[in-house]
């Protein structure tokens, strides 16, 4: 039994204890093809409130495609996409936002030259006054932005400074605080820690936990299993556009997660071959059998 043949289909775990209610967002066998390229295929994913669902995968595994479907930038071409149990198909990010699904993108979360407070309210500006004179309520926006940022523990001297002058971690935090403020129920974070140093990553992880504790369902996209394991409640590993692993925190250890992420299954297969080569230490590599444990059995399908 290899992880591939169990992970692709029917990998959804049914663990009643871990499910505090109906999933807010659910994918059933969802996939996406661009012309003749199948970027994503047969993906099952459930996102619950008060939980951090981690989606891991190497470059090109389909992580970006997955979040683009959920956030409304692209549409799925197969399977089902459900929000609150009802099938949906978003044509713009605005529709996803209206359903409470907010996305914080890795590099396009903000407009660098615009002040922090304008970025905070971009696309959802507060206004006052009747139509021909309807104008931005700058005072209220600045105050609200400041309060929301402080609630998340971010203190900035000057909300007028261009957001591009903030550090990467601060920018992510502003984007997260923004999503939380605008009533997001599901927060998608696209590799928020990818470009950050150790300390800044820790700060972002803190806000992920803070967002979860405020009752949000968080989808945390990353290729760092250590970061994922620190805050995750559920882990899904993508490989070549399909789901390789789908497991709750209770069923998977950091070591196993790391192995899956690092292409452990392939490494195991190569172990024999590598052992023939002098100078390669294979003792620490996992055996293929070690890796099958956390993968959901097919009969566990819901």
């Amino acid at each position, binding site marked *: 039994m290899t992880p591939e043949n169990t992970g692709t289909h029917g990998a959804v775990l049914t663990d009643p204890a871990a499910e505090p209610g109906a999933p807010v967002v659910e994918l059933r066998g969802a996939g996406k093809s661009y012309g003749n390229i199948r970027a994503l295929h047969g993906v099952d994913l459930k996102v619950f409130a008060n939980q951090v669902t981690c989606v891991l995968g190497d470059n090109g595994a389909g992580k970006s495609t997955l979040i683009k479907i959920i956030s409304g930038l692209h549409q799925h071409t197969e399977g089902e996409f459900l929000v609150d149990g009802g099938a949906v198909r978003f044509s713009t990010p605005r529709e996803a936002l209206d359903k409470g699904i907010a*996305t914080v993108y890795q590099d396009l979360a903000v407009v660098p030259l615009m002040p922090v407070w304008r970025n905070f309210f971009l696309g959802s500006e507060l206004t006052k006054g009747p139509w021909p004179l309807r104008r931005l309520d700058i005072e209220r926006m600045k105050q609200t932005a400041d309060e929301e940022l402080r609630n998340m*523990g971010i203190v900035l001297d000057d909300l007028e400074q261009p957001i591009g002058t903030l550090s990467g971690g601060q920018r992510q935090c502003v984007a997260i605080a923004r999503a939380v403020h605008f009533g997001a129920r599901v927060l998608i974070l696209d590799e928020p820690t990818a470009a950050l140093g150790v300390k800044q990553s820790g700060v972002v992880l803190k806000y992920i936990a803070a967002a979860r504790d405020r009752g949000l369902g968080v989808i945390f996209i990353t290729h760092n299993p250590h970061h994922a394991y620190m805050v995750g409640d559920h882990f899904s590993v993508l490989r070549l556009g399909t789901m390789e692993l789908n497991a709750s925190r209770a069923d998977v250890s950091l070591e196993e997660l790391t192995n899956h992420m690092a292409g452990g299954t392939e490494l195991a297969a190569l172990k024999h071959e590598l052992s023939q080569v002098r100078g390669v230490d294979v003792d620490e590599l996992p055996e293929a059998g070690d890796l099958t444990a956390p993968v959901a059995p097919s009969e566990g399908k819901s």
Partner: protein
Amino acid sequence: MSMTRQAEPAVTTPPAPGPGRQTDGRTSRRSPALRLLARPEVGVLLGALAVLVFFLVTAPPVRDGSSMANILYQSSTIGIMALPVALLMIGGEFDLSAGVAVITSALTASMLSYQLTMNIWVGVIVALAVSLGIGLFNGWLLVKTGLPSFLVTLGTFLILQGVNLAVTKLVTGNVATDDISDMEGFAQAKAIFASSFDIGGVNVKITVVWWLVFAALATWVLLRTKYGNWIFAVGGNKESARAVGVPVTFTKISLFMLVGFGAWFVGMHQLFSFNTVQSGEGVGQELIYIAAAVIGGCLLTGGAGSAIGPVFGAFMFGLVQQGIVYAGWNPDWFKAFLGVMLLGAVLINLWVQRTATRR
């Protein structure tokens, strides 16, 4: 204000409530003078003042009130177009067809009214529709194809240039349109687009007033409305803007239509002040508008700028254009002088901003 910013998140423990708000504490305030200098429109204001002083010294006729009115009039015809061009530039695009679109608009109004012997207002309204339509076409094509605005509007520029000449010759048998000054509604339209009034014995053209009114309106829209926020956003980062729900398509297309409106207004001014239109004109004007916007501190790549900056930029152009004449120099030097101005202004702007924003 030397040290200050470090690459660390400004994160502390949750804030203590109360009036004494804690601050990050790592950024010292820059002095107000420096912060003012960092604004692009202040840089161009200083540049314009320097050029003004230069001509006040070297060309005594400039000191006269009527010369100043003339300079302001010259500036206003550039400035009215430079405003929407600047907004479009802040929105991340530019329009090479803006110069000939002015002539297209004037030709449309003139020929339509004259050939069909209708009230002049019919031509004016149809010309507005045509101008907005050209903007709509530019914007729509840009958004649909994703081509750079350089290519799309270069195409429109060439099309309009050819159509202006060919259609005018076809309709009037001449390269210019017929005089429309005796037609119904002409006086009315002239009062709006091309009249003048006296202030303290100085004859001031109405376009100067329109120019300043439009500039004030553009500033308000840019800084105080949702739409203004969207302009900065689509120019600064289109993908981010779209992802947070800004209607990028609407914003871009409407900006092109705004340039169409400007072209219509300036076209009507030309028509009602000269009574006839030369169909081959307007070529090269688009670069003057773009230069005025850039001198005014608008970022060519979008995302930053103001509506006030281009006002000073256009003033600088008008000043140089008339100043050379008043100084008694050969007007052939105008373009060379402008080029030097453009480079000088851009370099000074850059230097002032770097110095003032250094931390």
